[in-house]
């Protein structure tokens, strides 16, 4: 079941949400986050998977950020699909702001992007994947074996060949490092 949690802002900010107001959906586990993300994106919603804010003590290691003005429709669709969130929280406080899943580190000749628990490192000059680490899921060695040594454009997509949450996180890192390299 879910709750609509306005925390402590009940009587002071009952304003009508403007389009840029954001909310986050908190789920019990990451599998539900992935299912919800796929469902909402397939229906054209502008949602984004993020890290949970420090003010949220429930749920898993991922949350979904969404335009708050759409909360009624989103909640109905998720409930109908059998994946209702634990909570829906308007981002009304810095402590409720979701954190970016990505962390980028420049090693000079190499660039590393970490997404959640997975790290992907490429050689900047050649865009060859030189390392994949992190996780702890059983398919990480397989993913590394398939991807390391390949050019970013030619490596298999971890989202397609992976079978675990690590594969999902690695796919996010893959998309982010591609985005950075194309700028």
């Amino acid at each position, binding site marked *: 079941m879910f709750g609509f949690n306005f925390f402590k802002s009940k009587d002071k900010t009952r304003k009508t949400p403007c389009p840029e107001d954001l909310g986050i959906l908190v789920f019990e586990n990451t599998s539900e986050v992935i299912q919800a993300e796929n469902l909402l994106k397939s229906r054209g919603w502008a949602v984004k998977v993020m890290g949970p804010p420090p003010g949220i003590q429930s749920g898993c290691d991922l949350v979904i950020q969404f335009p708050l003005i759409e909360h009624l429709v989103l909640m109905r669709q998720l409930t109908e699909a059998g994946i209702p969130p634990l909570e829906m929280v308007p981002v009304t406080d810095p402590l409720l702001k979701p954190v970016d899943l990505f962390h980028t580190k420049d*090693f000079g000749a190499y660039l590393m992007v970490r997404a959640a628990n997975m*790290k992907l*490192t490429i050689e900047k000059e050649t865009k060859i994947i*030189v*390392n*994949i*680490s992190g996780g702890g899921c059983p398919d990480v060695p397989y993913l*590394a*074996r398939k991807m390391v*040594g390949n050019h970013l454009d030619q490596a298999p997509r971890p989202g397609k060949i992976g079978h675990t949450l690590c594969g999902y996180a690695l796919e996010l890192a893959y998309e982010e490092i591609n985005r950075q390299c194309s700028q």
Partner: protein
Amino acid sequence: MSKIIDARGLSCPQPVLMTLDAIASGTDNELQVLVDNEASRENVTRAAENKGCQVKDIQDEGADTRITILKG
């Protein structure tokens, strides 16, 4: 000559990057990489093989591992 790369206490990808730099830049034909965790051991071995090097030996030394790499 053999060059020793001490990557103990470092988390991936740093041991891999140190190994790749040594493969690319050094004149030593043999590298000995010291690591202290399984992930680094796997990743350094894989990176060396991907660069066409031969992993000659992997020796456990207590909690550490010594990986001997011959440059191709």
